[in-house]
């Protein structure tokens, strides 16, 4: 890989040890993936935040780093709401460690916005054509597919290295040749909003790391695209997809998959909720303001009989304290900075009902509990149903 004179100096350690290690990470990954050079990034989103996932080992590494990020950098969700963790049933020991993680990132200049949907709170982080170094798989998918920015799916250390250097190796989805659709997906159904998570769950399993090009009957909205991309990145490892009518099709001779009502129905039946559901979680990926409006409306005048969590970004909850108050009047809880997949708070339950194809894929493995799926309305009904 070609390095500029300044990059070479940093790589040789003339700018200090932390920058040398950061450069070494970028160069090693560039070599592994055949990058020709480094390119500047607009922003970085760093994974490896929840103490539940990174543990003592990760905390030590972040705490030992010196230096300062040179581009805007934000964080993935943490293992708890950073202010209301006691209400989640998080113990003090975990909370102390989690706060240490956040403080260590803050010392490096990383902004402590802990969300899987940075694009919902900071539009300045990613615009069409920008190169990024983002980690969270659903945000990577959204940035590549909906915003039209370019990013690979970074691990925690490589994202942080990119933030310290301000650059990332040029390979993968930074190159146009890797952004060509590989498979056509015809959707033969009038999709409801809650179908997109299921559709993504099905398609992700089918296409793995391919680049699907969808043919829809009508254009999905932003929340639907968020749910679709998140599910495909969890059940498969899709980082880019196309949905626009004028997007190119997969080249002649590529595979084509037809998804029908029956396919969607099959997954719905397999994952239908039953009496075992003891916790319901909405907000994977983090709820948008519009989704909070919907939940608040559905909960009006009702009381929850089971735990109901709604996860969102802190910036959204702080902007709409009225909606948070309305939702919590029912007994449901709005949690920020975290989600059900990365928080140890979910450990004490048996079966979680979700409205997310991503959570449906991850809850059984990462939380070792059963998962059920339903629309937002069905989730609220399950939470408020007596008996």
């Amino acid at each position: 890989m070609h390095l500029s004179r300044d990059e070479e100096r940093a790589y040789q350690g003339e700018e200090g040890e932390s920058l040398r290690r950061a450069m070494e990470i970028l160069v090693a990954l560039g070599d592994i993936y055949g990058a020709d050079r480094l390119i500047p990034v607009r922003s970085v989103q760093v994974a490896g935040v929840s103490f539940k996932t990174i543990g003592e080992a990760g905390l030590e590494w972040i705490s030992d780093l010196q230096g300062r990020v040179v581009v805007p950098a934000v964080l993935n969700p943490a293992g708890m709401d950073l202010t209301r963790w006691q209400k989640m049933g998080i113990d003090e020991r975990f909370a102390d460690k989690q706060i240490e993680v956040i403080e260590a990132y803050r010392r490096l200049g990383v902004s402590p916005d802990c969300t899987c949907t940075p694009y919902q709170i900071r539009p300045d982080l990613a615009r069409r054509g920008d190169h990024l170094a983002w980690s969270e798989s659903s945000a990577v998918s959204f940035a590549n597919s909906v915003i039209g920015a370019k990013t690979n799916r970074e691990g925690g250390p490589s994202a942080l290295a990119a933030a310290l250097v301000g650059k990332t190796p040029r390979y993968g989805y930074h190159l146009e040749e890797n952004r060509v659709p590989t498979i056509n997906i015809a959707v033969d159904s009038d999709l409801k909003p809650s179908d997109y998570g299921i559709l993504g769950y099905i398609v992700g399993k089918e296409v793995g790391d391919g680049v699907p090009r969808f043919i829809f009957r009508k254009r999905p909205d932003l929340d639907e695209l968020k749910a679709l991309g998140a599910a495909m990145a969890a059940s498969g490892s899709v980082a880019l997809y196309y949905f626009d009518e004028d997007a190119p099709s997969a080249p002649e001779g590529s595979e084509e998959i037809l998804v029908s009502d029956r396919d969607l129905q099959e997954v719905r039946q397999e994952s239908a909720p039953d009496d075992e559901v003891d916790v319901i979680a909405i907000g994977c990926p983090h709820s948008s303001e519009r989704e909070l409006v919907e939940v608040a409306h559905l909960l009006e005048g009702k009381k929850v009989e089971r735990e109901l969590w709604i996860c969102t970004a802190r910036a959204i909850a702080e902007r709409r304290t009225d909606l948070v108050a309305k939702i919590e009047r029912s007994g449901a809880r709005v949690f920020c900075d975290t989600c059900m997949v990365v928080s140890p708070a979910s450990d004490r339950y048996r079966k979680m009902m979700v409205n997310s194809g991503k959570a449906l894929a991850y809850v059984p493995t990462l939380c070792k509990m059963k998962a059920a799926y339903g629309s937002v309305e069905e989730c609220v009904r399950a939470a408020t149903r007596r008996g």
Partner: protein
Amino acid sequence: MRQSRHQEGLNLEIRCHRISGGKATGPALVTKEPISFLGTVDPETGEVVDPGHQLYGSNLGGKVLIFPGGKGSTVGSYVIYQLKKRGVAPAAMINIKSEPIVAVGAIISGIPLVDGVAASFLDLGDGVTVTVDADGEMVRVEGAD
């Protein structure tokens, strides 16, 4: 490779590709199975604790660990770092083809790591003295068993 082990005193020098810089020498610990550091290795002791792994019961501390490459959770990178801080990390690592988890783990921990050696390296006997000179992109295998 297999022949050279039996030739007393013959040192073998093999070109390789630097992933993480540095130079170290130690006894070889060899496996043909990829390693997922998270779950397979105890980060406090360096011992391989997964009964399903070929290296079960071995300790990685101070060894030149020779394996095809990494796999599994990206948290594995941090596990390598923790091994280093506890003083029970491999002295160096050799892969056939490195992937990002082990590459990043070696770099953040300052452990020499190279790849690009022939697959016959995985036939090397445990305990043979191996020197990894990542900066010079050279691996040296001492002669005798």
